[in-house]
């Protein structure tokens, strides 16, 4: 290791005396252990919230409901108010100039713009 790296102590030591179980004991090297954690979705599923009374707050039921306000439609490219939608690319646009731009965009960019508002075509 380089001197300046050692001096900055940026690398976490493998043995820490205050720990009861060291990292290398818990996760021995060279041993396949697969995935040993659950994603949030799986955690929520395992919690079985449906078995508890509805008025008891939990991680799922404190989520906000869908918005009641009228949907804001903005131009995907410029951020201006976007009253129009291109039937070919499904991008929203503000005026004819932006329309020209979106028609000249390569598909990759169209998809990236759509992905910004989670409207891109996702092939699974």
């Amino acid at each position, binding site marked *: 290791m380089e001197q300046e790296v050692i001096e*900055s102590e940026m690398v*976490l030591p493998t043995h820490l005396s*205050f720990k009861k179980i060291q990292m290398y004991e818990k996760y021995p090297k060279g041993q396949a252990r697969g995935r*040993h954690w659950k994603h949030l979705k799986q955690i929520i599923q395992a919690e079985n919230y449906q078995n508890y009374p509805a008025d008891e707050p*939990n991680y799922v039921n404190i989520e906000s409901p869908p918005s009641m306000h009228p949907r804001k439609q903005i131009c995907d490219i410029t951020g201006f108010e976007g009253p129009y939608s291109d039937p070919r690319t499904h991008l929203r646009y503000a005026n004819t100039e932006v329309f020209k731009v979106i028609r000249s965009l390569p598909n990759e960019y169209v998809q990236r713009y759509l992905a910004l508002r989670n409207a891109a075509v996702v092939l699974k």
Partner: protein
Amino acid sequence: MPFISQTQRQSDYNLIPASCPIVIDNGASYFRIGWAGESEPRIIFRNIVQRPRHKITGETVTIVGDHDPALLKYFDCTRSGPRSAFDNDVVFQFEIMEYILDFAFDRLGADESPINHPILITECACNPVQSRSKMAELLFETYGVPSIAFGVDAAFSYKYNQKLGICDRDGLAICSGFSTSHVIPFINGEPVYEACCRTNVGGYHVTDYLKQLLSLKYPHHMARLTWEKVEDLKMEHCYITLDYASEVRLFQKGGKEAEEKTRCWQLPWTPTPVEEPPSEEEIARKAALREKHGQRLREMAEAKRSSKINELENELKGLEFLIQQLRHVNGNDIPSFLAETGYISKQEIESAIVKVTQSLRKAKGEQDEIEEKQDPSATEKYTLIDIPDNMLTPEQIKEKKRQLFLKTTSEGRQRAKQKRFEEELERERRNKEDEQRRLENPELYMEQLRIKYNDLSEKVEQRKRQKTNGNNHGNENNNVSGGVGRGERLNAAQKERMRLLTTAAFDRGKGEDTFGIKDEDWQLYKKMSKDNDDEDEGPNEDEAELTRVASRLREIDPTFFPKSEASSSGSEPPRFRPLTQEDFQILIGVERFRCPEILFHPNLIGIEQAGLDEMAGVSMQRLKSRAQRLDLEEEVIGITNSVLITGGSCLYPGMSERLEAGIRMMRPCGTPIRILKASDAVLDTWRGAASFASTMHFSRQVFNKMDYYEKGEDWLRQYQLKYTF
């Protein structure tokens, strides 16, 4: 800047009594750890872990938090980016959490013995019990912690500001963090989780949105737009507008105001050295050089020509000498004499002489005047033509045939010449007419010409298309008709030929063979032949006309561009343009307020949930229905008199005004609304937790390892900190 890491190792760990709790604010973006009762956390770092490979030794190392990026050059980070222990605002990856805690305790100065201090650690509202129990397990089993307490970050912040006298016992805490935003109502100083609400939008989404928008706007500078840089841009320039629509209209109009509001980030840029045009001397020198080369080539050609002339002259002399000698030789001796020279007869020698003289003339650059010379003598030459055959000897008949042949060819030549001349005249005449029409009405003329050009080019294009049948390999197919592979399209002519060939092949053996009886049958072979493909010999009429019109247009219309050239130049890469300072500027205009707008309209990034202002309304609605259900006489209306905004994403300028406007729209007229800013939106949570942990009240609310294992999961789910005492 509210976000500054500090990771100096603390030296006073062993001086702190064991009863003093360690306070941890485990936020999704930053991790803060310190001692209860103190006013500032000791250690602050980004809550991320990287596990790159050391470039020289090749070992995988663990790097926690953010470090000097210059030092990362010793590591290969390509295969592992920074990772977080959080999914949304819930800790789910406890291996990463362990690295983070290792680093935090190490920097706090812990050594030798296990961590012998109670721990207060923050979590999100209504943390799933699985995450909570894993965290407790990790702290008990791995670090030997005596006791733990969990608290909600927003609640600590609210309580701290209540202690400072900023907000009331009853109120709303609007806490917008890194990955989520919460609204938590407080009644009698206690958070009411039944009425709280969460939207999964936070600072992460704002930064990501800004990063994506900028990298789509400036694809060339994508590499410069790192997460850290965009985060800085966001904190420095983003603001929240009172009314998005009117603000954006300002930019759409593009007045002076919009210009003032646009921020510009100038990337490092050095002008490329301008290439000096070559000096006069240089040009002269080059011209001289070229001239010299040309001279040498000309000399070489001249030498070659003269040597050839010499050679031919010598040959001619030799032949003439031979002829002269031949005159002196007797008739009988001629064959034996000629045998030595290689010629068979006198005629052959003479024809050789003629040939050599002709090529000599050519070499000397003289005009081939034979034809012209022949012309006057033509009538004399064809003396035998008019005499009937029966009056001539066989030799004369032969001679007559020759003369006839010569005459027809020379006449044909004459006719062609005449025709050419007439065509020339015709063209001249047409040009004159054109010119006249042009002078009469230049615009109309030009318009007509253009229309004609377009029509013609269309026609020619269509023909070409038909010929190749939309196939780019048309040329290949024409040349190698046998090489038409399967699936390759044939053009019309090739198709026709194929049809003929197949019918011819299948006709065989079908009854009587009548082929050849009619004369037309033989035409079949002509149709079948390959040459039939290019049915138009040379450029056809349309093409000729097209070139004529194009050249005419080129003469009189400076804006005219032939289509083929235009299309070919279109496919070329754009011309090289020297890059200017403007090309290295990143302008942030609408993005400044478009990105934080997602906190109020999450649907802009496809999250179908209520925004911050609406969340406050939802929370109050839930509070009301809870009061009805529990038959409580709680004052819901007055709650808006103390709305505290806290969390890193509440630091945007204009936040309180926008929230006030949004909440005012939902509340009855005359409702008191006070939006209060937290004293320090980022650190208040830790401070609140630290002051809470320093009270006597805290020690009654912790649980130890025994409780954890005996009381079970259900108890842990119910576990809730009481914030008031």
